[in-house]
């Protein structure tokens, strides 16, 4: 190659370099602010006592401890129970057996006895089951049974919003139940050699439902509310081969669905246009969203780790902290992280530095 050829190649290289530099100056991409974290307070697990009113109390429950605490950590109410206590913002459940339980208000006052198996809160509503795992019973604010709905076969997935309860079954059917106990829709995703529903999520406004269904192949299916029914608006075949419950969750705002994958946490926009991966190993997770700063937090749990990952949707990871693995309670509210275990409750705050 002659002298003129080398000059030509050098010119091209310089031009490419100049274009790259110009790109970053002309179209600068906002870099995420660094996230720091600061400890705020700790409530010792020794602080046991009688319940007292806690304004704006945040409910917690782990092992034999449960109660409410205030965001400033000054007022706290911690009680002891025989086992994991089901607790909501205003009420909690205590019982001697799976079929003998009672509903209390946040001040510890008995509201009523619950006729049902394994009562629980979800979507700020009180439900119980039938002992065979086929039925769902809804209860009113005074614990009285409102209705009983029997699903076609045993439940393998469940979720509820304030207006809709959805159950997925071992025969691959999803059924939605309205506030009056009547069937709103029934849908079988199909498309797999073996039919089963492994995970269900419902958006807070009940306009979208996400499901992990089937074996060979497994699928993520997103349903949207149409004229009185739910229809598939996007779906994706998965590489996974789970035969157990699979966490799937909507990120507040109804933009993204997060779901467990063997290689991390998948992020899927409900319209199917975003298909990304958060490379975070998680056997189970919860997602929280700080709308003011457009930041999301994932509490990712494996058998021997618990991590909080802050990210800007869809997948820009901003920071990660490891929590003590024995922490059983995690809650994120805006930029505040609360977590706890047998040694107490803690509050940390995420800060932009």
């Amino acid at each position, binding site marked *: 190659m002659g002298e003129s050829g080398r000059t030509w190649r050098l010119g091209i290289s310089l031009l490419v370099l100049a274009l790259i530099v110009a790109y970053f100056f002309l179209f600068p991409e906002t870099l995420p602010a660094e996230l720091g974290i600061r400890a705020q307070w700790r409530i010792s697990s020794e602080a046991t006592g009688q319940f007292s009113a806690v304004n704006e109390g945040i409910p917690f429950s782990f092992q034999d401890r449960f109660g409410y605490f205030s965001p400033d950590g000054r007022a706290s109410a911690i009680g002891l129970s025989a086992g994991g206590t089901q607790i909501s913002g205003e009420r909690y459940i205590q019982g001697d057996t799976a079929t003998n339980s009672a509903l209390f208000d946040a001040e510890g006052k008995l509201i009523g006895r619950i006729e049902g*198996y394994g009562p629980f809160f979800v979507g700020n509503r009180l439900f119980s089951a039938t002992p065979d795992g086929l039925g769902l019973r809804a209860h009113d604010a005074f614990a009285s049974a409102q209705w009983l709905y029997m699903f076609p076969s045993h439940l393998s997935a469940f979720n509820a919003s304030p207006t809709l309860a959805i159950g997925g079954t071992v025969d691959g059917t999803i059924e939605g139940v309205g506030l009056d106990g009547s069937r709103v829709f029934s849908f079988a995703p199909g498309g797999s050699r073996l039919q089963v529903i492994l995970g269900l999520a419902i958006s807070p406004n009940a306009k979208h439902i996400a499901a992990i269904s089937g074996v060979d192949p497994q699928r993520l299916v997103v349903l949207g509310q149409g004229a009185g029914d739910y229809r598939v608006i996007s779906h994706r075949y998965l590489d996974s081969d789970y035969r157990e419950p699979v*966490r799937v969750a909507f990120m507040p705002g109804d933009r993204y669905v997060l779901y467990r994958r063997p290689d991390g946490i998948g992020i899927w926009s409900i319209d199917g246009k975003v298909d990304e991966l958060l490379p975070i190993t998680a056997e189970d997770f919860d997602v929280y969203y700080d709308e003011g700063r457009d930041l999301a937090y994932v509490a990712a749990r494996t058998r021997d780790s618990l991590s909080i990952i802050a990210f800007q949707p869809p997948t820009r990871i901003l920071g990660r902290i490891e929590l003590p693995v024995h922490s059983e309670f995690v809650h994120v509210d805006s930029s505040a992280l609360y977590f706890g275990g047998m040694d107490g409750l803690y509050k940390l705050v995420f800060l932009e530095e």
Partner: protein
Amino acid sequence: MLKKRSALFAMAMMALTLLGAFQWPVKPEALRLNFGSYASGFYKGIELNLPDAPVLAPAKGEMLFAHDSPRLPGGYPMPGGSLAALAHSSGIISIYTGMQPGSLANYRGVVEQSEILGMSPVQGSGRYLGFYLYDQRERRYINPHILLAATPDARVPLIRSVALVSGGQEQILERNSVIRQGSWRFVIDAIDLTALGLPGAPFDVAVALDGSERFRVKYDSARMAAGQSLLFSDNVQSERDYLLADGRISFGPITLTKGRSSITVSATDLTGNKREISYTITVQ
């Protein structure tokens, strides 16, 4: 009529096809509740009490679902603390509840007949092994006794009482009873003791009036439709109407007119052991 015959034919064909294909998950002497027993409702499987024993796959299949945490991610409680489901090529799903947490086998592929799926509940836990057979094609639970290997049974079902109920008034029948004319429902307390001596359900219950069969149900299947539990493939009954809160069963209505009549109630188990009781009533 054609539909009824088709349903019966399909059931008979399935039984013939699968007869002997399903073995007991634990030994049958551990039978605590049978299909249709009253257990906070109509029991749609069988319940076995053999503490801390291996639970065997009843036939070749593939693990569909296994979970042994107390609850599903959405909070729904697992019946007896765990749930496992095995899909079989016949379209049947066998379902197990109550196996010990931590004992569930982590199969991914084919499970051969007699392979261990997990361990039954420990003694004193208050839990028992639940075993269900779900027909995915017909979307119904099948009485497992139809498909499991038959076991010797010399116990004859018991008819503990027969009553007529109308407008909140209940009249227990005696050999010779006087009844006012009108519309009545039969309320029958019929049981078949299980291997462990608990009150289970017979397989066949029938009522005849003046020698003419008026009601008959066979405890062959149950299905859920639009949130309601519907019992039996022939002469379908709503569970809410059929099974009373005290475990008795209710048929009807039937109109009784003036005169003397005979009522015959029979209860038969799957082996063919039959109990029959007749009453003479005077309707005024």
